[in-house]
């Protein structure tokens, strides 16, 4: 049986994560600074691999709306982007939206850094006021 979504609620130190397999959307929202990032992101990598395997050429939209993340979460994000870029290279159209507050230079710069490193995904930086 294939489930059509994955939803992990935010905690004090980890983001809300939503995968909608039907819509082809992934969303990360909030802050991420767990001491052990692999415990938070390990299940996400597994779900993402399945998600990308099932995407089979359909459009995938990944949205990152993060206000802050620590260095071990940055490594996990890089890992996610490498998976997305790999899927895009193999023919799945992948769009990434990287949201940051208009005055948040740190998050904008992180977005630019990831953007520079990715070759196959369509990466868009979006300056937007936080939604809450």
């Amino acid at each position: 049986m294939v489930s059509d979504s994955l939803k992990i609620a935010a905690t004090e130190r980890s983001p809300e994560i939503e995968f909608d397999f039907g819509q082809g959307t992934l969303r990360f929202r909030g802050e991420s600074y767990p001491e052990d990032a692999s415990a938070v992101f390990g299940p996400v990598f597994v779900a993402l691999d399945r998600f990308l395997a099932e995407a089979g050429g359909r459009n995938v939209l990944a949205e990152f709306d993060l206000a802050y993340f620590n260095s071990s979460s940055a490594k996990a994000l890089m890992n996610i982007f490498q998976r997305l870029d790999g899927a895009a290279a193999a023919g799945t159209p992948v769009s990434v939206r990287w949201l940051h507050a208009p005055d948040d230079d740190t998050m904008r710069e992180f977005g630019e850094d990831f953007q520079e490193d990715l070759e196959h995904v369509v990466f868009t930086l979006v300056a937007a006021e936080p939604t809450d």
Partner: protein
Amino acid sequence: MLAKYYRAFKEDLDQRGIIFSFSGYLSEGILYSLGEALRQKMTLEETDIGTVKKVFSVFVEQSQNIIRYSAEKLASDSGQPIELSSGMVTIGSEANRFFIVCGNIVLADDEPRLRERLERLQGMDKDQIKAYYKEQLREAPDERSRGATIGLIEIARRASDPIEFDFDRIDPNSFFFCMKVSI
């Protein structure tokens, strides 16, 4: 005597510009609560949002380094995976800048490696630090560091001046390690 003693202690902290200082066993829960208090205090004082974020980031990386690497740990003897690490984190302001200081005990065997990493970062300018961060982001973490390298680079990236650090020998097997970052 009691009030006099602790008033002097508090005044000493105040004179050093210390906003707060934590010493003892540090957990993720304490890190979260201190971090929230820090952000609230800085926001109430209308500190520039970029500065708030930099100070918070350095505070998180330093605290997580203590949690991971302090050689002074208290482990549960009931076999449960509970481990507390001891150290200190101090945040204050001086000369219109914030400073974040962390201190903890490290094993003498780990000192050369830590010193070498920090000296390497001290010798880099902002662009080199950024390039080094990007390079390390792509690297698989090496066994012993559990992500320390990128954590130190993140600290160096947010710092307004090169990181200051020092080691004070306690005994043949250990040092007190201290790091100060200004923003």
